[in-house]
């Protein structure tokens, strides 16, 4: 497979995953905001966390003077200045699909193309600020379309190189997001004197879409158990551990030879990451120590995705937002 095509497929999957998660996070926060009091400063902390998870506060503040809800929503959804704005990542998915359309199922391209041409163009032409109900409907549409895409990939694509490169992109992006989310929620608690099992972890559970699955297994929603679940649970599909297992499968499928230098490099990195995640003992940590650990894991993770790109001669994202 051409490196350029592998690269575009990998990024298409990453953007697809990113868009899905960001749409969910925005939906959660838009709903949360309704329940909190009418005072903006009551929920601005949450918006700040959302901003840091979905984009970057520094970049935002380079363009705006203060964090206020309407401009922030606009920034996260539509701004061309934000490389991770939903509109921009959706376009990147479609463009990457367009350059790889001879390697993906025709229906996959058609779903993405239709969505882009209809729903996405339609919301751009709406008067601002867009009513909450329309925003929610759009976000739901985004997620539904991407579920359909994921299902289509899963059920129709040959288990061949294009499929596995998309898999790698998806799991890499997902685990990175989980680590980032955890880190940012911890950073918000930096000033607290409480221990991890005294802090409420509901917001993190909601952001990571893990609430339903978590509550079926645990009753306590303290931050300690939530973080352990998101990092170490082997069955929850957004946990870092789960993503690592899936990536191991994909690497094994891409490299038929378990003795090839490429396989050995990637496989040993994955294995050591599994150990590193498994061995974190959050019980004995305070918030600050947990932050340091998560910062380390995040930079390790980013280094790992760079190693992957180098090994397979991937380009810079061929279609950057």
């Amino acid at each position, binding site marked *: 497979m*051409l*490196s350029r095509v*592998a690269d575009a497929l990998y990024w298409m999957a990453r953007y697809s995953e990113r868009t899905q998660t960001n749409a969910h996070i925005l939906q959660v926060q838009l709903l949360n905001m309704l329940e909190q009091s009418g005072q903006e400063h009551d929920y601005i902390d949450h918006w700040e966390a959302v901003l840091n998870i979905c984009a970057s506060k520094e970049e935002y503040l380079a363009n705006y003077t203060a964090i206020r809800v309407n401009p922030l929503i606009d920034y996260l959804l539509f701004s061309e200045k934000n490389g991770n704005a939903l509109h921009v990542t959706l376009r990147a998915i479609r463009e990457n699909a367009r350059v790889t*359309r*001879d390697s993906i199922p025709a229906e996959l391209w058609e779903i993405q*193309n239709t969505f882009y*041409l209809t729903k996405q163009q339609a919301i751009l032409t709406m008067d601002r600020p867009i009513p909450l109900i329309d925003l929610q409907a759009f976000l739901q549409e985004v997620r539904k379309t991407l579920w359909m895409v994921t299902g289509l990939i899963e059920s129709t694509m040959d288990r061949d190189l294009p499929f596995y490169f998309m898999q790698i992109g998806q799991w890499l992006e997902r685990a990175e997001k989980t680590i980032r989310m955890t880190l940012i929620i911890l950073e918000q608690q930096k000033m607290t004197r409480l221990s991890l099992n005294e802090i409420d972890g509901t917001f993190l559970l909601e952001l990571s879409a893990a609430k339903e699955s978590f509550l079926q297994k645990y009753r306590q929603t303290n931050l300690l158990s939530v973080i352990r679940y998101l990092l170490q649970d082997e069955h929850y599909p957004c946990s870092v551990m789960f993503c690592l297992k899936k990536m191991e499968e994909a690497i094994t499928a891409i490299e038929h030879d378990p003795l090839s230098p490429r396989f050995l490099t990637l496989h040993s990195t994955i294995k050591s990451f599994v150990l590193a995640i498994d061995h974190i003992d959050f019980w004995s940590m305070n918030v600050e120590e947990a932050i340091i650990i998560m910062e380390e894991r995040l930079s390790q993770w980013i280094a790992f995705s760079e190693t992957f790109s180098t090994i397979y001669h*991937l380009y810079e994202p061929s279609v950057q937002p």
Partner: protein
Amino acid sequence: MMNLYDSSLFFDEMFDGNQPKPHYRSFHHKLSIFSQEQLEEKYRQAQASFLRQGITFTVYGAQDGTERTMPFDCVPIIIPQSQWAIIEAGVKQRVEALNFFLQDVYDQQRIIRDGHIPRQLVENNPYFSLTMLGLKVPIANHIFLAGIDLIRDENGDYFVLEDNLRNPSGISYVFENRDVMKEVYPEFFSKHTIVSLDKQMANMKKALLAHRPSTMTEEREPKAVLLTAGMYNSAYYDHVFLAQHLTIQLVEGRDLVVQDLKVYMKTIYGLQQIDIIYRRIDDDFLDPVAFREDSLLGVPHLMEAYQAGNVAILNAVGNGVADDKAMYAYVPDMIRYYLQEEPILPNVKTYHLKDDQQRAWVLEHIRELVIKNVSASGGYDMLIGPHASEKEIALFKEKIMKHPYQYIAQPTIKLSRAPAFQNGRFYPCHVDLRVYVIKGEDCYVLPGGLSRVALQEGSLVVNSSQGGGAKDTWILKEELQHAESSSRRVILDGKV
């Protein structure tokens, strides 16, 4: 349902007076059953289908979004088998002769020495490529895919309007038009037996893989790719379609690299050698070392690998010398010279403007003529005398005086028309037909081709970049057409 128009002004593909021609009768009957609303709904479905599939072309410099679907018209052009047989033989003959010409012009140049073609017409031609002189191309074939544009005059006689031997585009539309026709208008197909397009891609692949580079060892299977300029190119869909159906990789210049005079593509496992490049970028952009330095689309040193015989490039480099509008006038002579045959399909009369006598006559009769720039395409830099304003005429007279060798003149042909259904009504539109010829060790003609239609009423310009659309083209299987009681015939509406 169809409101008749005056079909006597031009040759009409479908009507004789107010009656459909025999080969259109059955179609006409089917069409008349639909209400206007049904036809409009079907029209919307067809356009939506093209858009959903991203079967679009890019309009350079357009303001309102750059991706457009080519307007599709549901009234097909139907060609009886006997007529098609003539067209098929005619375009094959033409491509054979043009290929001989390209072999000759880059080798002995016998045709020039024997005085049939002026030397300066070849040597001053911007597409004449010195790098091709003496180069032996695989299976001595310069033309893998040709698009021959045909028109019909007021008597219904076919003429060749243009040869496209560089990168003729639009072949994907032939297939997609048929697909959308089957999807949206299945009713039209009943009671017709038409030549299917199914096997054509297999022929094309066979022809493609026949171009083994001279240095390739017997036991190796050739590896072919399609070189595209990328997704912002106006014909990107065409490239995707061909790569998919020929089952070859779609590559961009940056995916290829030349090492030791061999061409490789960059894969995830490292470099892999390739043997045949079906390129869809122009000569100028192929190799920034040999041609335009500023080309970002090409592959440095590609021409050196080509000259070393390590890679085949299709269509061959330098084909433009044979298909420009000035050389066009000499194609009948080429047919006589190389094949010792009379041309089956005639040319449109062409005046050369560097000839003083011809130029004087043309300037006097400019209102009756079409003036074309010899190196332009896509309907650009063209004057249609009968429709032009005083200002345009003055401008073209000036251009001709300044660069006489750059222009040719042709009589305005009363292009044939066919009915089109657009914006809720039927009206007559001018049409032409691009026939695709595929040449490897054998020569194949795609049955039908791309019928292009000038959808602006009265317009003569069929190019998609200027408001043209497309129609499906049916070649009837004559012998079955009138065999009413054939029991093997399956009819789509369930009746036999």
